[in-house]
């Protein structure tokens, strides 16, 4: 019984680890920035304000910030 339970727990853990890695990955700030940009875009769209530009702009800025935070890899590495 405990073996079955531990298998289920391992399976559930693997499931959540997979989706965490898929959505968040190695930098949660990028996923968070995308989420916030989508919320603001939805709010602006509701008010009839053109907002399609906000998400691409956020993606560009969040990617630049994420790259700046990481240590540059060595050539050939």
């Amino acid at each position, binding site marked *: 019984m405990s073996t079955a339970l531990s298998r289920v727990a391992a399976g559930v853990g693997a499931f959540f680890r997979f989706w965490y890695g*898929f959505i968040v990955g190695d930098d949660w700030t990028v996923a968070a920035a995308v989420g916030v940009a989508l919320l603001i875009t939805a709010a602006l769209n509701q008010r009839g304000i053109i907002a*399609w530009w906000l998400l*691409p702009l956020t993606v560009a800025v969040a990617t630049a910030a994420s*790259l700046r935070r990481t240590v*540059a*890899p060595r050539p050939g590495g």
Partner: protein
Amino acid sequence: MTTATATVFITTFLASTVEAIEMVAIVVGVGATRGWRSTWFGVTAGFALLVAVVVVFGLALGSVPIGLLRLVIGVLLLVFGLQWLRKGIKRVAARSLTGMGIPEVTDSEFWVGRGVDWTAFVLALKGVLLEGVEIAFIVVSVGLAAREMTAAIVGAASALVLTAAAGTAFAAVFNRIPRSFLQLVVGILLTTFGTFWSLEGLGVEWPSGDLSILPLLAFYAVIALSYTRIERRRVVAG
């Protein structure tokens, strides 16, 4: 063949080709980057789900919440595509483009494990399911409106078969591209489609409809190349 039949065939063929290109671009990109076995599992599962959706909803496909589907799949592709975009930028910056033509079989993104590569599976499944549902929408809406369902189905099926054949030819080219650069290219593609679909899912109107994908793709490509040059300078500096 009557004029109405030909018109329906051409309309569904062209409209479905646009969707099929997006589907095949994702499948070929993921397959070449992660490996083909799990990608084909994802494609098969995607088509099986698509058939189930079509069988369940039939001609009432319009009641499928396509906006929600676009939003969920778009956001997932976007956040995952951004991970590949960043990794691709860092790897291309580190290795430059020297060695083009030599596949990097030891690259960490290529799946070498025994079981199913769920990342490739999920990406391929999503691409096939969303684009497949959109093609089914086109068939049902055009076919029903013109009462030419057979021509609509044949037009969409022709588009899918021809695009898949072209994708198969491109896959050979993709397999010769270094995986670090391929990851960057696929990252740009996933980020583009993810951005486009997630905003469409929110009900946001793009300035030029589906054609907006092209300037969006160009924007992300310019961003990726610019960031790669900046990262390259950081790498060289130390």
